[in-house]
């Protein structure tokens, strides 16, 4: 590898690889675009990407994969996981007389608004959960709840970037990119970072899932549900080997092109790109082929629900399991497009939250239970969160505005101490009063569980070492098992 050794994200060029491994198209072992560890025998395990990064795992990794359940728009904490009886007592009173009201995004501050939903305690731990999430409630003994999350931004787009990249500005690498950069994927035929498009693209767009200054190969591949999960995934050739023949010919000519160029990293990457695309043609359709799944499994995920959005999110959750089973490092699910807005209920809180909750509740619980029964929950970290919370007082009459000063997030699975409640908000659920937890802390904890010291996962850019957690981040030890 010689002079390129310092170039950690591209430890071996295509041409160097060609020097070592020879074979027909598709059989060529290659360094995947998605940072997959090199399958070529020349590289043994001691030269894994982490080692090359000088980042021998600090910890024995608890988690191999992450499923990130993104609750687009901001779930109301006081209506879901953070009950506040005082809101019921003071319902309809002027919040300005109770506490100092921050500027809200819409500025249309109404009265204190009690939760339309009752809370009940569940599980051995007795964690209170509202009526919105009866299924997730049945999994609370596997869940560690953080009630003291804060964000830096009250607007969706910035808050979304912040949640995904640790920076409120567009253009930074998403957490899924960082994780794949650090660990690589365990599957050569699938991208290491997959976003399952449930129907809603979050404000800020696909930039939430981009690789920023990390190589483009670490950016998310966005998959849709349905028979053709990815555009152009099906070869058009009449016979399967016809495509192989064509690609072999193309490869031959491409390689001689490179020979005639001085520096051709871009072209080399484009060639490897083809090889991954080729493999995805079989690996992607296989993923969404659910016929091997039992009826009971599908039912568990709510795929027999009367609600089409539950069915759709259920199949996304099932797909997520199938992805992590195949070694995809980071799977993010975006929300389904229910007949209301995303979780962003500036008005009509009751209807909107109920529709959104109904779509995701059973599928998420199904996912936890299914993973658990297959022994996969031990190595999979599930994270559930929105980009911020909502105000305990109304926006207008029956909505809630954005609240970056407090929201609830939960984790389940690998390395997580189930049944834990961490952090506390004030009597209104408006601000955090104990164990304030930042998005950076959440990222640090995720990386920690994957065996990465968040302070050492760096990328030199613009003359500085940049981290997902910027210069912040503390592991939330109290929720770890």
């Amino acid at each position, binding site marked *: 590898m010689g002079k390129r050794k310092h170039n950690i994200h591209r430890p071996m060029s295509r041409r160097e690889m060609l020097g070592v491994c020879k074979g027909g198209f598709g059989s060529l072992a290659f360094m995947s675009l998605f940072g997959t560890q090199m399958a070529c025998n020349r590289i043994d395990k001691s030269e894994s990407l982490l080692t090359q990064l000088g980042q021998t795992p600090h910890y024995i990794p608890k988690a191999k994969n992450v499923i990130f359940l993104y609750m687009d728009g901001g779930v109301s904490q006081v209506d879901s996981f953070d009950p506040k009886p005082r809101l019921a007592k003071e319902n309809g009173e002027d919040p300005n007389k109770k506490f100092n009201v921050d*500027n809200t995004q819409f500025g249309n501050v109404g009265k204190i608004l009690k939760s339309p939903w009752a809370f009940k305690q569940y599980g051995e731990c007795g964690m209170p959960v509202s009526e919105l999430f009866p299924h997730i409630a049945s999994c609370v003994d596997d869940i560690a709840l953080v009630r003291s999350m804060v964000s830096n931004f009250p607007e969706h787009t910035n808050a979304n970037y912040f949640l995904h990249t640790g920076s409120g500005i567009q253009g930074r690498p998403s957490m899924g990119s960082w994780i794949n950069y650090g660990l690589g994927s365990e599957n050569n035929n699938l991208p290491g970072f997959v976003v399952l498009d449930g129907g809603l693209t979050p404000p800020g767009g696909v930039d939430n899932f981009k690789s920023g200054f990390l190589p483009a190969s670490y950016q998310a591949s966005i998959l849709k549900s349905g028979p053709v999960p990815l555009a152009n995934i099906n070869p058009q050739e009449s016979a399967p080997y*016809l495509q192989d023949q064509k690609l072999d*010919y193309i490869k031959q000519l491409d390689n001689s092109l490179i020979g005639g160029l*001085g520096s051709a990293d871009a072209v080399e990457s484009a060639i490897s790109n083809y090889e991954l695309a080729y493999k995805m043609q079989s690996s992607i359709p296989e993923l969404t082929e659910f016929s091997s799944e039992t009826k009971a499994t599908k039912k568990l995920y709510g795929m027999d629900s009367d609600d089409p959005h539950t069915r759709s999110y259920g199949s996304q959750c099932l797909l997520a399991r199938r992805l992590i089973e195949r070694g995809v490092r980071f799977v993010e699910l975006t929300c389904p497009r229910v007949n209301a807005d995303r979780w962003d209920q500036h008005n009509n809180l009751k209807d909107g939250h109920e529709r959104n909750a109904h779509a995701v509740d059973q599928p998420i619980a199904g996912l936890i239970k299914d993973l658990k029964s297959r022994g996969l929950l031990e190595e999979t970290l599930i994270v559930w969160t929105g980009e911020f919370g909502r105000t305990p007082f109304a926006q207008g009459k029956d909505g809630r505005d954005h609240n970056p000063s407090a929201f609830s997030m939960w984790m389940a699975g690998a390395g997580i101490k189930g049944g834990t409640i961490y952090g506390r908000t004030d009597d209104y659920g408006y601000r955090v009063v104990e164990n304030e937890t930042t998005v950076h802390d959440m990222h640090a904890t995720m990386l920690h569980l994957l065996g990465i010291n968040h302070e050492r996962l760096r990328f030199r850019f613009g003359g500085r070492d940049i981290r997902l957690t*910027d210069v912040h981040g503390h592991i939330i030890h109290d929720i770890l098992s």
Partner: protein
Amino acid sequence: MNKTERRLIVALLIVGSIVTTMFQCKQKDPISGIPDEVDFNFHVRPILVQNCFLCHGPDPSSRKANLRLDTYEGATALLESGYQAINPGHANRSEVIQRVTNTDPELKMPPPESNLKLSEKDIKILKKWIDQGAEWKKHWAFIPPQKEIQDKFEKRDVSQTIDGFISAKLKERRLEKANQASKETLIRRVSYILTGLPPTIKMIDRFMADTSEAAYENMVDHYLQSSGFGERWARHWMDIVRYAETKGHEFDFEISGAWRYRDYLIRAFNDDVPYDQFLKEHIAGDMIDSIRWNKITGINESQIGTAFYTFGEGKHSPVDIKEEEATTIDNILDVTSKAFQGLTVSCAKCHDHKFDPIPTADYYALYGVIESTRFSPMAANFTKEKEENLKTLEKLKKRLKEMSIGDISFKNSSKENDDTTHEYSFLGDFRGSSLDQWKSDGVAFGQTTRMNTPVFSKSGKTIKYFDSGKASSSQYSKGIFGALRSPNFVIDSDFIGVKALGIKSTIRIIVDNFQLIQNPIYGELDKKVSSSKWQEISFNVSAWKGHKAYIEIVPGYFSGSPNHTYKLPKDAYIDVQYAIAFDGDWPQKVDFRTAEIQNDYLNNKQLNTLLRNGKLKNSIPESSHLLSQNEQLAKSLVDSSFFVGVNDGFGVNSPVFIRGSYKEPSEENIPRGFLSAITTHHSFKSPGSGRHELANTMLEDSNPLTSRVMINRIWHHLFGRGIVETVDNFGLQGKLPSHPDLLDYLALKFKEENWSIKKMIKAIVMTETFQRSVEGSEDAQSKDPENLLLSHFPLRRLESEAIRDGLLAAAGNLNQKMFGPPVPVHLTEFMQGRGRPGNSGPLDGEGRRSIYQGVRRNFLQPMMLTFDRPIPFSTFGKRNVTNVPAQSLILMNDPFIIHQAEIMAKDVIDQTKQSRDKKLEYIYLKALSRKPSEEEITKANEFLKQLAQTHGVESSAIDTDLNIWKDFCHSVFNLKEFIYLI
């Protein structure tokens, strides 16, 4: 400095470095080593920006310890402790040096926790600079290019001078220049870069056969003159103005006539419209004196430039209409400042710019300019001829009036208006002669009311009566476009009432400049007028009390959701007497607004009495002739095609919105104006928006940015990277120029060459630098891996449009038809959602170039997006170049590509009844612009035989087998050489 103070500074620097990391930037001069003469801008400021400015920069709200390092005065001020942060001439007495070299983690700067560390070199530079006297300079981009640079090279050929600048840096770094690229490479490079299309076989043959010295220049001239040039460069500019034909958000409403702007750009680049004119047309094309009339069609080109203001996103029924206005204006300011000035003015919306000397007040000075500008349909085909006709019409009208009335003297004289208080207030009264200070945009309403205009009998021979005072869109004829718009007012009553009559016409209340009027929230603000009897039309505006508004009266109508398209039927017209604001019921009696209007009214009565009593002659010579002349001319003014552009409104000075929230306005309003860092006379004087002044200020000779920013964009498109890599950001967060002197030389030359874009492109394309091979030496790769110094030509992937257009050209399926409405977007099953068009466009987009394909925000073409055409939300002067499997999957499997392969295969079989080798040569020339090598021919033959076997075709039948050639052509489309420019 006491200990607490030190601790404070430590803490502040930590915070500083944290935030710096967020705003991280990459500024590195390619020259290594410590320079003899340390330059503040190129060596020192990058260190300070990265490490200090967030807490010690221009924004006072985040400034810590009252120390600012962005100005000389600030940095050298005596600190409380008695030290100076920087003591010019004495590095060892400067606190800054003490702190950055300190080993005590409590005191060290930047603090160890920040992950930031000044390198040895950084520290040496700082020391040397302080010792050399700590000279402070304005940010490089704010210092106008110095004439000396140009004087030095005045007599020399521009291309040679450019090469000189490039060579000097290469020599400095001892880098060898790559050889000149082959002729095949050059023609492909020039053709693609100038026109976005591959060269035709004919052009390749001609160029290869031309052994004269002028061969290259002739070839370059050919492409500069080809119509494809405009199609290529217009698309570059469309990235900058976030061009789209719909508004996105929930329903993806249309931006009507957006494509006319696309056509305008193509014509402008092909005609080499000087950039200063081009800029003026964008900023103030509706109001400039130097209107550019199209030489062929005669239409007013200049006004079309203003359409760029309207390409932003637009919400369906936003709850907070004022917020929507702020968002719209913010996007316009963001795009305008990036596009023309390379500055991120939008950063100063909530606080003074953290890095650039752009105070919040400057942002709101510009905000007022846009707030005083009104979106409006514009007659797309308004020609010079029509303008002349209009002038003639005015004269005729005046003459008829004079001839009919003569020099009659009226009895009624002005009286003081009585002081009766009414239960209503006037918003406009047109029963006199004047339009009561309303703005008459377009031509329909003219500049006065109908007062005393003689109305003739059908035969045109006798005067029937003298018309009364009313604003009318049928001054000349029905079906002519114009809008009558009131001054801004604040809604303070429950109702707005307008007394009007007309056919198929509209009155709208424009609240906070909001245009997409429709239910559920805003339906009340748009009323149709469809009666030839006077109507009392009232609007319930109680929900918008306290909001700024104006009344808009137009013949024709807006079709509402989902199109929001303006239409003007031929018989549409509207007349208006007055507009009032009132509570409760429509007032019993509406008096005249002023005594003068009353007098006008009485005079009209008197005139008609005289006429009736025969005291005034009821005919004038030649009246029927004049009237028919009038009618002819008026007919020519009837409009039916429109686009959305802007008209000037009434000047509004905006307060500063504290922390960016309009709900917290400052007490003081900021006069409309330009950036204080760029110009000394930055407040505008004109009564309207001031856009005209805005354009002029940008074009002032002392403006340091306009020329640099545009010439840098040109360079960027030619070399794939600008001299300033951050083409849209010349501020402190942008990158430093790789060749500052070259940039300044070109910026000055650009102006000297009368802002001719084509001349500058030619000068650059004629350089040796541009003609170099992509093959860089080993040495170059290690010393200058990013090829900043251009020792060789930068290898680049073609843009999405060039890939698609190249495919069509290679396949022989390129439809070269220019201009016109967009080809409807081809919809795949992956393109779902509200606002989805009813029908999908054709798979191959009618074979037309990508620039003519529809750009619907919510249904952007996947192939364009996948190959990195930016999503149109802001200025993208520089596209990303990504490498993702979706690109390979498109080229491997997309039905469009396969279809093109089939078309090409047919062409190959049909057109060349020659040998197989000739067929291969044909394919290579069409797709790769070169002949295949012998080895390639051998490989191709082997491959063809293999394909024949697979398809079960006898080898004798290969030459006529469609499937085989289709597979072959498809394979060629998948070669990297096809999508890379080498």
